[in-house]
């Protein structure tokens, strides 16, 4: 893998690290499988790109994109809590509706940003080559996001949210307002995903109506890779492991892209990625099995 390809892998890994943290909040903390992210990733990108093209400050546009995506999360939570629609179905409904909304927001299937100012523009004069600059910038965004989320989960409020996810009735019995935690959790999760979409659009020069496809799969894979590598109860490490998982997922894609010398074709990419991710998941288990065997002296 060349340096440039490696930096590109890191860059996209960090951006999707924010997606992974968002997915972690819903799937693991709230125990709310949320597929809205496939739509809110694009929504964040679409709103940000449209506002930038309309002449707004890129930072303001990114904030607006993040808030729009957070609102998408609120809609899913509302459908689920207010109308008792199954969480999975509620999120699928929002995701489906978002496809149309994204097209409406952009007014066309693709908005280009290549020659527009972005969040990175103020740093372009620092003399750091663009390939490094982009990575440093998205890495900082992802790490700041991770630290804030970890801090949030350590607060009283965050603790209450975690309690809702692990035992809803118990939490309610202890005086925690469950619905409010679900609303806040979904907004936060989708906001992070929307921010990732906004960053992706700005570092790649476009927002596209198809860009959200498969976001949930990538996010979930990253969460699970991270979990399998770091068996810990520390919230900070768990949140950071989402980013590590995301980067490892991208490295798997990158290796798959470079696997042509083994006789693979371009169309084999998804299968190779899946196999590599499966290996990453199986490996820690094999290692612990092997350790356990050795501890018992290999007798059985």
């Amino acid at each position, binding site marked *: 893998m060349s340096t440039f390809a490696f930096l*590109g892998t890191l860059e996209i890994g960090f951006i999707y690290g924010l997606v992974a943290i968002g997915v972690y909040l819903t799937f693991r903390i709230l125990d709310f499988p949320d597929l809205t992210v496939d739509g809110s990733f694009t929504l964040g990108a679409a709103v940000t790109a449209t506002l930038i093209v309309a002449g707004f400050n890129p930072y303001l546009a990114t904030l607006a994109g993040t808030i729009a995506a957070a609102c998408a999360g609120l809609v899913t939570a509302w459908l689920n809590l207010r109308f008792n629609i199954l969480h999975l179905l509620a999120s699928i409904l929002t995701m489906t509706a978002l496809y149309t909304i994204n097209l409406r927001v952009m007014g066309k299937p693709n908005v280009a940003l290549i020659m527009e100012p972005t969040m990175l523009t103020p740093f372009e004069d620092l003399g750091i080559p663009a390939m490094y600059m982009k990575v440093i910038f998205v890495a900082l965004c992802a790490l700041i996001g991770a630290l804030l989320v970890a801090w949030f989960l350590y607060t009283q409020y965050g603790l209450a949210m975690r309690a809702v996810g692990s035992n809803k009735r118990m939490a309610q019995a202890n005086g925690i307002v469950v619905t409010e935690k679900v609303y806040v959790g979904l907004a936060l999760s989708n906001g992070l995903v929307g921010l990732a979409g906004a960053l992706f659009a700005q570092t790649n020069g476009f927002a596209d109506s198809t860009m959200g496809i498969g976001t949930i799969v990538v996010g979930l894979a990253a969460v699970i890779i991270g979990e399998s590598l770091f068996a810990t109860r520390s919230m900070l490490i768990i949140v950071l492991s989402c980013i590590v998982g995301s980067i490892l997922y991208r490295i798997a894609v990158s290796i798959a892209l470079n696997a042509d010398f083994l006789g693979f074709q371009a169309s084999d990419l998804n299968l190779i990625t899946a196999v590599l991710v499966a290996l990453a998941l199986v490996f820690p288990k094999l290692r612990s099995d092997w350790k356990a065997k050795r501890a018992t002296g290999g007798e059985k």
Partner: protein
Amino acid sequence: MKLTSIFKSAMLSAAIFSCALQAKPVYVATTAIVEHPALDAVRDGVKEVLNENGYHGEQFKFTYESAQGQPAIAAQIARKLVGDQPDVIVAIATPSAQAAASVTKTIPVVFSVVTDPLGAKIVPSLSQPGGNVTGLSDMVNVKQHLALVKEFVPGLKTLGVPYNPGETNAVSIVKALKAEAQLQGISVIESAAPKSSDVMIASKQLVGKVDAIYCPTDNTIISAFESVVKVGIDAQIPVFAGDTGSVARGAVAAVGYDYFDLGRQTGDIVVRILKGEKPGSIDVKMAQGTDLFVNPAMAAKMGVQVPPAALERATQIIK
């Protein structure tokens, strides 16, 4: 002894010579957003032109990556390719082209089948784009379509265009068509049909005012294309279409794209860059339609004759 040493030195010099020749193979990297028969045909067309121009064998490296429909992977592929430092990157379809154009300012990028390269901000201008990016746009070639109508109706003065003003695609085609028609001294009469049930009325309004009717690739019009054809037969006005598929449904003739050929047209640009031209000085090429469909029976019904030249050029004659 002597002979072997001569032989050895000959071998050695041959080896040195071939090393010098073998400097670095020419490397063309292609990437597309998704596997699709049309996009695959473009890639194969590019490769064929390169092979014909002497780029083949060990001195030539040709790779292909598909983003499997995911822009995130397109972005990753673009970064990988920049790291691989190919001589030319061929990016097929808009998201792949945008991803490639946004990560490199030095490696030549040739895009293909991007409908609106200006709107997609891939190039700042169509002529002499500057920078490292140029390519082929598959926007509807209105000039060629107008030329076809003129070939059938030499005395063309006014052209009727029914379309749906709510379809972005149709609006941009009509806009381009009007600009081109004005240059040729032809006036365009528009007729709006917002729903497919309005198409009949919209076409009838053109009767008595126009010499020919041209239907752009507009989903509303195409879905009720038979209504236009009926008006054309009744009023003896030839009806032309923007897509070859409509010829079997009653259009007199249409030119359309063959994607393999679009790949060949893209390949020509790649060859020019490999031979030393700067991408920034190569104009963005407008795709030339090479498929010509004609329907002589329908032409007769609408009161025109298929010119022998068109009949000869036709890739398909509808009976």
